């Protein structure tokens, strides 16, 4: 923030129209600044400039993505389960018996590079408050993480820091971490992806919305005091390209206090239960600016705030800094005057500081027409007088130029067909072990064992299974399952198909737990929107997701866009991370990915069709360092049918295990299921054994079936027109592969060593 030696008031602004203002330093373009002057009919005060600069930042306004995100609503399939759609803090999905769940994923990429521990920690804190704000009790978190190469020196700075931040904050909040992703690629070395997901449970009647109706109602700020942390975070960190000076921006990263957030959760839930709030909003990016403008715009449009009443951690903060501060663990509530005393009592019980900082006001029809009227004073002097809707809802919208990257054709023409394939069984065997030990595929326990997966006592499935699952109440058997997936390599080759593959994989992962997929959230991680090539990737990806969701009948309920993920002019591979939520009527029916060791002669089936599809595959990457060609074809009809078989198979108890095929194909799925179950298998492959093992054709899972359930299983597959191919049997203490001209076997002990050694060998001692 520039120095503000003297208070800049509305009166002063009107009298000094030509006074130069640092709008460019705050990330505003010339025409955006001109529009602010036009809205206000004068130059903005420095406090107003602070509000517009953060609210119109890419991070808060979605100005580059909005035109593309609209199709999620326009193409949304009809789904009666959706109680609250996009636009609120998070979507709400009916799960039956009067219960609903809300879930959302959000990025905290840039802060996590600058200060990995606090950056990742506050990412968890932010998404948890989003869920809490909907009126829900947060019940689980997941995280999708992507880093530079495992052995890169900076990865050894960033990865342990990010993991310790998530562990510190999530564990201390008492939320089980039930899964996620861990990926590595050289493109993420200066720009890790830290995407955090939270899911919460609520009763239908408890849904809270960000709104401030009722003139005379009080505006209460509660939670942490406001300090100088994170000032400019929204506009400087999230909306500008990374460069060498990033380390100098360290003070822009917020510092988290999970203990206070835990108290804030319990306090808020008690306030909700006693019906003491009319509207509520969490303070995340853009802090007080965002909460006041959004709450006001969602209500009468009128609000009066005495900024000098905001409790401060540092008494020297100026009005502009208070407006931009991103201090964590703060909430803003709208409370009717007759309930204020009870509200304050609950806050006192939880040792939460709560302060009335203003009230909801009426607006004239003319003011309403202009977008409402938000007035803020500082020790009696007016420093803000603006229509809040112009900041919260009417920010700039850009149709950014779009151009297919010039290297796209060459990239797609460089197919994996010319790569040398394993020539014999010894090479097949060696390459299987190599792919299994690759950092993005190997055992992630080094990371996940630092997360509490047990707390709250309702975790039914967690890492390493295909999706996480929690029981939503103690006294029932209803549950929700969640999975996140994304593959930047596929998306780089073809953003439309790649995004649908991410959706399909998350859908399949949820189905493989036995749950029925219902709704979608997304975290769209891309490079600079000012690069036409990146915008082409973004346009294709969003079109792919919207089309895919329509076809699968799973609406997008919310999400987050993260642009400017690049170092210098080099963008990351476009990485949309897709989260799918599913519902299961009886969690006791859940499926795991572990082969059953206790069923004699369990049969192993492959569901789906395998084609020669190795573009963007783990094999091409790990064995040849190659990225080219086209990703596997998408068949969403087949995915939906597969989902129905898995869901029916789980509820009819005809499946003993299910595991989806993705990175590394059948080879990796067999190895993982065998290791998780502690029992081997023997498979007989037809056709080219290399393609059978390493192809990444979509819409495939392996399932284990007890001999006694075989007839019912076949019938289930027939009913849903899914091809089931018997590929072998479960048993023994090795992975045995046989084919027409030979075969090989790998003892489980050898598989385990390959799978479990990779991360510890690099990260232990860090």
């Amino acid at each position, binding site marked *: 923030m520039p120095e503000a030696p003297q208070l800049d008031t509305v009166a002063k602004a009107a009298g000094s129209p030509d006074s130069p203002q640092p709008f460019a330093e705050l990330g505003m373009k010339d025409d955006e600044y001109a529009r602010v002057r036009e809205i206000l009919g004068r130059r903005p005060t420095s406090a107003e400039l602070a509000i517009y600069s953060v609210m119109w930042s890419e991070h808060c306004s979605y100005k580059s993505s909005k035109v593309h995100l609209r199709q999620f609503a326009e193409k949304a399939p009809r789904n009666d389960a959706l109680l609250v759609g996009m636009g609120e803090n998070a979507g709400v999905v009916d799960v039956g018996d009067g219960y609903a769940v809300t879930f959302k994923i959000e990025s905290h990429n840039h802060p996590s590079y600058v200060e990995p521990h606090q950056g990742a920690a506050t990412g968890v804190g932010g998404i948890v408050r989003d869920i809490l704000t909907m009126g829900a009790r947060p019940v689980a978190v997941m995280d999708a993480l992507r880093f530079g190469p495992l052995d890169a020196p900076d990865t050894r700075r960033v990865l342990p820091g990010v993991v310790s931040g998530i562990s510190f904050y999530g*564990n201390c909040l*008492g939320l089980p971490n039930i899964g996620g992703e861990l990926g590595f690629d050289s493109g993420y070395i200066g720009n890790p992806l830290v995407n955090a997901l939270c899911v919460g449970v609520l009763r239908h009647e408890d849904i809270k919305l960000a709104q401030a109706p009722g003139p005379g109602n009080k505006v209460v700020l509660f939670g942490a005091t406001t300090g100088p942390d994170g000032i400019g975070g929204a506009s400087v960190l999230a909306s500008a390209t990374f460069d060498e000076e990033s380390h100098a921006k360290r003070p822009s990263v917020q510092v988290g206090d999970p203990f206070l957030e835990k108290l804030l959760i319990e306090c808020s839930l008690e306030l909700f239960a006693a019906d003491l709030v009319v509207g509520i909003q969490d303070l995340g990016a853009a802090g007080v600016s965002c909460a006041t403008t959004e709450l006001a715009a969602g209500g009468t449009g009128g609000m009066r705030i005495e900024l000098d009443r905001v409790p401060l951690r540092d008494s020297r903060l100026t009005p502009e800094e208070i407006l931009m501060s991103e201090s964590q663990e703060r909430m803003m509530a709208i409370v009717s005057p007759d309930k204020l005393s009870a509200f304050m009592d609950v806050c006192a019980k939880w040792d939460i500081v709560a302060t009335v900082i203003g009230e909801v006001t009426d607006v004239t029809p003319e003011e309403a027409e202009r977008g409402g009227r938000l007035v803020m004073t500082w020790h009696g002097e007016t420093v803000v007088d603006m229509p809040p809707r112009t900041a919260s809802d009417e920010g700039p919208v850009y149709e950014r130029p779009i151009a297919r990257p010039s290297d796209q054709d060459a990239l797609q023409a460089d197919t994996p067909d010319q790569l040398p394939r394993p020539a014999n069984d010894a090479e097949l065997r060696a390459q299987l072990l190599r792919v299994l030990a690759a950092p993005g595929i190997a055992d992630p326990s080094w990371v996940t064992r630092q*997360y509490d*997966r047990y*707390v709250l006592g*309702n975790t039914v499935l967690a890492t390493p299974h295909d999706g996480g699952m929690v029981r939503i109440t103690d006294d029932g058997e209803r549950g929700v399952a969640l999975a996140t997936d994304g593959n930047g390599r596929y998306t780089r080759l073809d953003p439309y198909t790649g995004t649908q593959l991410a959706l399909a994989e998350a859908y399949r992962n949820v189905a493989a737990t036995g749950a029925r997929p219902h709704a979608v959230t997304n975290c769209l991680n891309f490079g600079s929107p000012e690069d036409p090539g990146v915008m082409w990737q973004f346009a294709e990806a969003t079109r792919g997701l919207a089309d895919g969701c329509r076809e699968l009948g799973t609406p997008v309920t919310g999400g987050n866009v993260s642009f400017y993920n690049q170092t210098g002019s080099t963008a990351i591979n476009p990485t949309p991370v897709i989260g799918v939520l599913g519902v299961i009527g009886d969690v006791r029916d859940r499926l795991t990915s572990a082969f059953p060791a206790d069923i004699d002669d369990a049969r192993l089936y492959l569901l789906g069709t395998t084609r020669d599809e190795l573009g963007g595959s783990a094999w091409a990457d790990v064995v040849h360092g190659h990225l080219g060609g086209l990703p596997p074809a998408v068949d969403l009809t087949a995915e939906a049918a597969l989902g129905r078989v898995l869901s029916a198979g789980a509820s009819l108890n005809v499946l003993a295990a299910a595991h989806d095929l993705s990175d590394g194909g059948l080879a990796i799925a067999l190895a993982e299921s065998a290791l998780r179950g502690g029992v081997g298998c023997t498979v007989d492959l037809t056709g080219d054994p290399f393609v059978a093992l390493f192809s990444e054709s979509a819409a495939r899972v392996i399932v284990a079936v007890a001999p006694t359930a075989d007839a019912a299983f076949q019938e289930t597959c027939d009913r849903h027109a899914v091809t089931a191919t018997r590929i072998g049997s479960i048993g023994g203490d090795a992975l045995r592969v046989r084919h027409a001209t030979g075969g090989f076997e790998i003892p489980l002990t050898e598989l385990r060593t390959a799978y479990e050694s990779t991360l510890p060998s690099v990260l232990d001692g860090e």
Partner: protein
Amino acid sequence: MAARVGVVTFPGSLDDRDAARALRIAGAIPVALWHGDADLRGVDAVVLPGGFSYGDYLRCGAIARFAPIMSELVPAARSGRLPVLGICNGFQILCESHLLPGALTRNSSRHFICRDQLLRVESTATAWTGDYHTGQEILIPLKSGEGSYVADPATLDELERDGRVVARYAGAAPNGAQRDIAGITNEHGNVVGLMPHPEHAVEALTGPSVDGLGFFTSLLAHLAAGPVPAAATAR
């Protein structure tokens, strides 16, 4: 009439609902106790649950020790009358309150560890372990960042000599705990501190086993046997 067992909620307690659930499954009536009330509400026993009381600021359990509820709990526990089980953060609070000797320090790996942990029950002569047999191996979750038990050699020798080591980590202690100690008891056997979480191993659906249930059923059997101090009955 079923036993009433208190579960104390401090600011930052996390596994309080889980402890209450485990007690319910075992057949007890869980009673919520609030840190700020100097009132045990006439309960028959108390569980101090896991979590990060007061954010674990200053030192794990160091602030909770001074909570009003502790002014009632400490004398009753010290006299041998009131059975108390401190799990994880609860164990840390018991040590800070000097109801148990020693301290819990940062894991040797310096990382938080969440894993299914095999324990060996070393003493069944407590209010909380009578349903197990000595040497029994049980599988329950361990989840903590500061779970490494330490004490001076004389104290460790005394604990061993008096049979007050309640459970040890089978194999090497994953957190560096001295003599692989996972749990200990006081001289009366009524106060037990345990680093791993038996309340998370009470349902096959959500835990690695149901081996943890024994701590809670043991308590009920102990209470049913009458008001004789545990040490006198079980040894």
